[in-house]
Each structure stands twice: as C-alpha cells, then as structure tokens.
C-alpha cells in the first residue's frame, strides 16, 4: 500500500433543522492510501453520501480534521476547494450531472476549461478520455441522445480527464440496470489498475466485491472496515473499444 492520500480525524456532520439536530456523521476517522479501491456500504441514511461529499470537497465537516494529499482541507477557502475539485479529484454522481444541451466532448472539456488549459489540448485530452470509456464515436452527442450507461461513462471521462489522484463515486450504478452496472464497474476496476484511488458508494454486495476494501457505515459511524481480495470483472464485459491500459 502507498502513502496516505486521505486522512480524516473525528469528522462529524450535523444538520440543524429548526429544533432538531441530525447527526449525519459522528467521529469518522479513516485513512485511505494511494491506489486503494474502497467500497462504502450501509443502509439508507447512514451517512454515505455525506461522507463522500466531504471527502470530495463539495461540503465541509461540522468538526474534525480532513487531510487530502497532506493538505488540511477544512482550513481552505472556496477558491482552494475549487482547485482541489478541479485538479486532485473527480466526482461521479448517481444522477450523472452532465450539462444538458452540451455535447459529450464539451462536458468532458469542462474541468479543463476551469484549469485554464488551451483549447487544442482540451480537445485532444477530452477525446482521449472519451475513447478510454468506450465513447470514441459519441463525441458530439448530447446527454439526451445517450443511454444512462453512456451518460455515466461521459461522467467518468469527465472525472478522469484531469488525471486526478482520486475518483469519488456516489452510487454510480444506482440509476443503471445490472448489465450496464457491471460494465461501469469493469470500467472503474480498469481505472483502479492504473493506480488511481477509487472511493465508491454502493448498495449492492455484488458490486462491492470488486473493491479491495469495504467500509460499512451505520448511523453516521464506521461499523466495519475490512480488506478483501477484489473480484476481477469478467473479461468481455468491458467495452470492446476501450483502451484502458495507461
């Protein structure tokens, strides 16, 4: 295992709704090393999404410390958080979150645009990323002209186009049928082999078996945290035209 990429110390998140306080996370301390692929499981409302949003720098903890690549995230301002989201990590959502009426290519170029990368390089890198997820022939399709699986692959391409250390995925197969889910998981696993750290939430034990470590959440706490031998995705279930080796 590599050096720690993520380190949280007693991270808590409290939502205040009028009189009621909801403890979404309670003292979560986790260390995730570079190159690990971690599946996060647990019942609905156990705090998985809350944890992913904090680790993905979209949200801040109410208390506790969070270090990402050695940087204390809870101390950073909005601009620095934007930079981390842009360069250090890629986020994949359950609901894809692509810009509508915008081509696949432009959606994938979006992070590069905010990174200040020249138009020519944006273009080639976005093309490469789409080819990697098997959508080399769908560059100019809009999200509403693509299937759910294809849309999620565009989202994966967008997450990896900046060459991040970490990809955070919150139920990336939650809106997909089981066959498409396997395809997406194969994609993630191929990514894992390139050394990228993966953090993904899932409800399905089948899918968690592809990870090298399973963290189970319950009521805002880590209930169990175990290493396992990751199941290899079936050969052939990955898209035929994918070029997944680095």
């Amino acid at each position, binding site marked *: 295992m590599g050096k720690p990429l993520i380190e949280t110390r007693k991270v808590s998140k409290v939502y205040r709704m009028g009189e009621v306080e909801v403890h979404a996370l309670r003292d979560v301390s986790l260390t995730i090393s570079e190159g690990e692929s971690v599946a996060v499981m647990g019942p609905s409302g156990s705090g998985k999404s809350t944890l992913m949003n904090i680790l993905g720098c*979209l949200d801040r903890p109410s208390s506790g410390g969070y270090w990402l690549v050695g940087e204390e995230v809870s101390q950073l301002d*909005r601009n620095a958080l934007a930079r981390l*989201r*842009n360069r250090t990590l890629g986020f994949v959502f359950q609901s894809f*979150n692509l810009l509508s009426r915008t081509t696949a290519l432009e959606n994938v170029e979006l992070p590069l645009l*905010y990174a200040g990368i020249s138009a020519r390089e944006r273009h080639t890198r976005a093309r490469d990323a789409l080819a990697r997820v098997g959508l080399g022939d769908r560059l100019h399709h809009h999200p509403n002209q693509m299937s759910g699986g294809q849309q999620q692959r565009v989202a994966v391409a967008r997450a990896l186009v900046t060459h991040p250390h970490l990809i955070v995925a919150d139920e990336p197969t939650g809106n997909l049928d089981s066959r498409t889910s396997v395809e997406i998981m194969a994609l993630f696993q191929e990514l894992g082999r390139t050394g990228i750290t993966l953090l993904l939430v899932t409800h399905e034990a089948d899918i968690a078996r592809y990870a090298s470590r399973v963290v189970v959440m319950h009521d805002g706490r880590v209930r169990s945290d175990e290493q396992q031998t990751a199941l290899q995705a079936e050969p052939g279930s990955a898209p035929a035209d994918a070029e997944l080796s680095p």
Partner: protein
Amino acid sequence: MSPLQVLRVAVRALMRNKLRSFLTTLGVIIGVSAVIAMVAIGEGAKARVEEAFASMGSNLLIVLSGTTSASGAHGGFGSMPTLTWDDLKAIRSEASAVRYASPQLRSNQQVISEDQNWATSVNGVSPEYFLMRTWPVAMGSPISPSDIETGSKVVLLGQTVVDKLFGSNADPTGQSVRIQKTPFQIIGVLARKGQSATGQDYDDAVFIPYTTFQAKIQGGLQKFMAGAFMVSAVSSEATTRAQLQIATLLRDRHHLPIGAEDDFSIRNLTEMASAQQEGVKTLTTLLASIAAVSLIVGGIGIMNIMLVSVTERTREIGIRMAVGARPRDVLSQFLVEALALSIAGGIIGILLGLLAANRLAANFGWPILIRLDIIAIAVGFSGLVGVVFGLYPAQKASRLDPIEALRYE
C-alpha cells in the same frame, strides 16, 4: 478561463433563449435609442436657434414705445407711441456706447408687380439698419442717405418677395412695384437671410427709406414715431452700457420723475437669444432624462431576467462548481451575460436612435445634430447598467454552495 472563453460561454447561454434574451434587451434598446434620438433633436433645435440669432446680428437692442413690467406689457408695445424722432437723434448723438441707430416702421401691405402680388411686411428704415443686421444687397444698390433726405420712392426686396413676384433667380432691379398705389423703383435685392429663431422668414420683407414710409404709407409726418428703434452697441461688452445710457437719456427727455415707470422698453437680443437657448437646453435635458429613466427601467429588466436565470440554472452552477469553477468564474460568467445583453441593447439602440432621428429629420424637416460624445456616453451608460444590474444576480450565483446547488430541483 480567458475573457474570450467567458464571452463564448455567455453568448451560448444567451443564444439558448433567443426570444427571452431579445425581450430582455428591448428595455435597453428603447432607452438608448430614445436618448440618442432625443438628444439629436434637442441639439438640432439648439443649433438652429444659435444660427438664427447669429444671423440676426450682434449687440442689438430694440427700443419700443410703451411700458413693461415683470409680468409683461401694459396694453401692448407701441399701442400709444411715446418715442419721438428727436429721441432717435439724441440717441445717435449723445449715447456714447451706441454705434448705429435706425427707426423700424412696419406695416403689412400688398406689394404689386406687373402681373403678381404678394402680401408682405413693408419696413421703413435708415441705411444703418442693414449694417446692424450685417445684411448686404445681393444685386443692385442699398438705400443711401440721400434717399432718406429726399424721401425717394425706392425699394429693396427680400429674396422671398423676388421669388413670389418675379420668379426665383430673377433680377428685378430697375423694374417697379406698387405699394398702396405708389410706384416704387426696385434699386436692389437683399442677400438671402434665412429663418428666425421662431421660424419666421426674414426674406419675406421689403425695405424703403423711413422718410418715404412716413409720407406714403403712414400718411403725413408726425412728432411721435409709430414703430421701434433698432440700436447697435459699439461692442458686445458695451451692450448693457448702451442700454443704460439710452434708458437714462429717454427718461430725462420724457421728464419722468424718479420712481415712475419707464414709458418705453429696451429689449436686448443677446439676452433673448440666451433665454431661448436656455429653454431649448431645458427641454433637451428633460427629454434626455426621461429617456435615461427608461434605460434604468431596461436595466431592472435585465436584473430580473438574470435573477430568474440564476435560479433556473442553479444545477448547472452546481455542476460547474463540482468540476472546479471558482466563485469568480461563476461571477464573471453571469456578469458577462448581463453585460453582453446590455451592450448589445446599446448598440442596437444607437442604430435605431440614429434611424429614428434621421426619419424625423427627413419627414418633418426637424433639424437634428448627432453628437458622437452622446453616443459614447450611451454605450458607456448601457454597459454600466449591465454591470450595476448584473452584479447582484451574478454575486448570488457565485455565492451558491456547490452541494446545495447540486441538490436543487
């Protein structure tokens, strides 16, 4: 992101809602075109007034019979003549700030040629009258001092009268016209003078020696003069001094006790000119302010639509932030959208304003004057409207919390 990138993203967003974008800019379009057209008309009117007073001659004073007060005239000027011919002589010899003085007797008469006739104003004047008004003859010769002495029956025609009686470009010198049955010999034609500030045609007039006017038009010599004096000061600075000297002289000659009202009035043409110009300026300012208010209303329209747009696109903002857009990237995106709307409105507004001004000029003969500085100000102002009214929605967008924005339905 480079400014060009920001602009491209903004224009794309606006093009998605073409009709809405157009309707949003409509307020600015109307505001800017109104400002441009109103100022062009106002400036045109001002220029015409200036030109008209310049053509009237400088340093001029007009002395009239009758009293005047702050509220205006009692009974009307000249209704009861108080000025005498001796007054005119005294003004000429005793008022040091006065250069020229001429009587101006006026009567509307039918002027008859061989086969035409025309009603116009017949003026009895002295030779100095034309010097004061810097009004030379275009053909023939002017009225001479000996014409005054002998009361000769000679006449100078204005261009309009020539056009009406003899046809345009005709040279009627040497021919004669009849006024009240008296034949007058045409000794010359005056140069074209144009219109007065009030739109009256200066060239629609004929001039005869004042002595002849008294004898033939008024019928018999009188002590009192049924007309006015036109007086010019030695310089424009001396105008007020001349006015004072004439007033003192006339009060003395008319034996008015201290505290009694003047039985004459002196009008200063320069003052009248500036008063009229003030009027035009006030009108221009008023029109331009109304137009500027509509520009602000246009700005509020932009703000309204930008706020709607920020709300509608909350999720888009969340997605952009999730992939690394900084608050200032979001701010500039929405600000540039507002600016693009207002500047586009400004440019279209200028074109429409110029078009409207030209149409008015062509169809109604209104004078217009296009001022480049006003166009620059209009563009600048519409840009300012965009920034001022776009800033709040843009700030609202940039302050969104990424996770809240992504959750927005």
